[in-house]
């Protein structure tokens, strides 16, 4: 056989090549328009790497940032408009890239979400003082590469694709965390993040290999053909948990949450803010799609099919409850704002997992994954908004501790008021988008008759009031050491104001957004 490989005369026949690959090339032609936003990102990545070599270093934060912003908004526009009447004459093929990715409204929604989040993070980077005089070509290209991974992850319908896209999301973020190399905290947390992130990926691919053995295919659709009964049960349970570990790392759900507070504290704040929204949402999008294919309602029988019989949905419900409780209880004792927001991000992963519980069967007028989509829409503005204010405060006063927020309210009234709106949204109180989102999540859980989970979420919301309100109280009710006004930049104020407005709009005039959400599906 080795002779056959090495000694065979290679005779290239154009006709045979045409026959073999003609259909592939033709299908590529039909497929490429549907990954237009991804292609824009790839082009921008290459341009940014090169531009980083030629643009003077002191200008890089602004000029390359502007370029990335334009690329992201362009890609976002393409993501929303490809496949609609903006581009007549595009025929969507049955499968894209031999079934590697899907082009459905779920993927389109999340792509638009990631690209919008990316645009906000680019603006945050510009506002932040942390990158003065840095070479930023690599920074923006890594950020865009990670966003490219997010976009592909939300669309991935093949296990290979999920694994690769997950790593494409992660690997650039390891470097982004360490971008300020002089920062000791950053380098330490980056080591933990990179090594355990890779381990989580390795665990996940081992689990996926077992699924490949059971189905003989890497396509997600084949997962539904696995029978949970009898001899398969044990291996399905183990593979399921191993794969969950990979997703949980991205989502920052217990027990794979441990990196979250350290990395949030150590990383530059714009990177933290990116991790808390885009990469978390990407993990959720892939997990939701995976669970949709895998089936939540299936019985798992352990040990011969008699002794224990549980359902995946119960496992997810328990993990959701533990995750939100752990996140909220730990956040109570934090002094550093970034670290507190890290634990709060764990708690939100718990809330969002409630939506996965709601995916079992039909649930009322909004299904679980639609509630997750809506929550992410509000979470995008609330969390990114909160981080934008934190960046402005850290840049102007150097304060990262909750204690040092004392008396900030009168010194920067508009921005402090916006931060209060974001925090009220994160608590989940009306009239903010956080309330609407949490209401939907609770509703789908209650319709599934998981009353205990709804009660746990309620108690958690009450706990979270304490630590979020502490910031508001420090800003407005306590006296600080200084009363000097804090400088406002027009860009910062307008970005913060817009996000606060969006949070309020999602809380009051939410019906057009709910209409959009209700049209989201995995099919078209």
């Amino acid at each position, binding site marked *: 056989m080795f002779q056959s490989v090495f000694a065979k005369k290679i005779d290239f026949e154009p006709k045979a090549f045409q026959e073999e690959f003609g259909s592939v090339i033709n299908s590529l032609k039909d497929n490429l328009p549907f990954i237009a936003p991804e292609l824009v990102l790839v082009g921008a990545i290459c341009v940014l790497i090169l531009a980083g070599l030629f643009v003077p270093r002191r200008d890089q934060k602004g000029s390359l940032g502007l370029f990335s912003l334009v690329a992201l908004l362009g890609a976002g526009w393409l993501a929303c408009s490809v496949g609609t009447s903006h581009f007549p004459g595009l025929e969507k093929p049955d499968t894209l890239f031999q079934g590697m990715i899907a082009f459905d409204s779920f993927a389109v929604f999340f792509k638009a979400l990631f690209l919008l989040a990316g645009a906000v993070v680019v603006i945050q980077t510009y506002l932040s003082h942390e990158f003065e005089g840095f070479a930023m070509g690599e920074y923006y290209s890594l950020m865009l590469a990670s966003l490219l991974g997010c976009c592909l992850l939300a669309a991935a319908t093949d296990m*290979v694709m999920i*694994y*690769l896209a997950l*790593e494409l999301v992660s*690997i650039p973020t*390891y*470097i982004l965390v*360490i971008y300020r*190399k002089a920062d*000791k*905290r950053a*380098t*330490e*947390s*980056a*080591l*933990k993040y*990179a*090594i355990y992130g*890779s*381990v989580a*990926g*390795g*665990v996940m*691919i*081992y689990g*996926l*290999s*077992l699924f*490949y*053995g059971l189905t*003989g*295919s*890497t396509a997600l659709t084949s997962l539904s053909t696995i029978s949970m009964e009898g001899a398969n049960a044990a291996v399905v349970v183990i593979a399921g948990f191993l794969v969950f570990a990979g997703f949980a790392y991205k989502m920052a759900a217990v027990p794979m949450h441990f990196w979250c507070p*350290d990395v949030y*504290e*150590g990383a530059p704040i714009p990177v933290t803010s990116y991790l808390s929204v885009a990469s978390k949402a990407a993990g959720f999008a892939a997990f939701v799609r995976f669970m949709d294919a895998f089936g939540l309602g299936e019985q798992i029988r352990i040990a011969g099919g008699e002794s224990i019989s549980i359902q995946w949905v119960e496992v997810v419900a328990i993990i959701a409850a533990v995750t939100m409780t752990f996140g909220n209880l730990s956040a109570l004792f934090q002094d550093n704002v970034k670290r507190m927001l890290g634990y709060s991000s764990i708690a939100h992963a718990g809330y969002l997992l409630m939506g996965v519980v709601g995916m079992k069967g039909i649930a009322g007028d909004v299904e679980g994954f639609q509630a997750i989509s809506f929550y992410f829409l509000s979470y995008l503005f609330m969390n990114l908004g909160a981080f934008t204010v934190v960046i402005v405060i850290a840049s102007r006063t150097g304060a990262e501790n909750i204690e040092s927020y004392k008396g900030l309210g009168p010194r920067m009234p508009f921005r402090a008021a916006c931060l209060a709106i974001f925090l009220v949204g994160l608590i989940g109180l009306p009239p903010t988008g956080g309330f609407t989102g949490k209401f939907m999540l609770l509703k789908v859980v209650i319709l599934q008759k998981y009353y205990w989970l709804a009660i746990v979420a309620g108690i958690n919301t009450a706990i979270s009031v304490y630590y979020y309100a502490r910031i508001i109280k420090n800003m407005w009710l306590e006296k600080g050491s200084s009363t000097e006004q804090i400088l406002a930049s027009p860009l910062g104020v307008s970005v913060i104001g817009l996000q606060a407005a969006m949070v309020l709009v999602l809380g009051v005039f939410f019906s057009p957004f709910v209409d959009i959400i209700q049209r989201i599906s995995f099919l078209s």
Partner: protein
Amino acid sequence: MMTIGLTHYLLLGGLLFSIGMAIIIIKRNGVAVLMGLELLLNAAALNFIAFSHYTVGDVRGQVVAIFIIMLAAAEAAVALAIVLNIFQHFKGIEVDEVSTLRD
């Protein structure tokens, strides 16, 4: 014992996976944890190739294994770059020695 089948390869893969996990938990040296990671990834690649050979009879599993090797290379490069960076700061790569962050 004498006829080698799919189960033999799977058990071997499982064993390597478990040893890799034990290495990751026990060793505190960043580079050693990377070695454990390589074992995890190789266990997965072995599974893919064995399934590809025995249960499917095509090369898809082998292609997945190529992607795994590619990712292992990328991860090793990035992680070692970070390890070098850590060393410049702390003059040591034990994860324990490094703790300006609280637990």
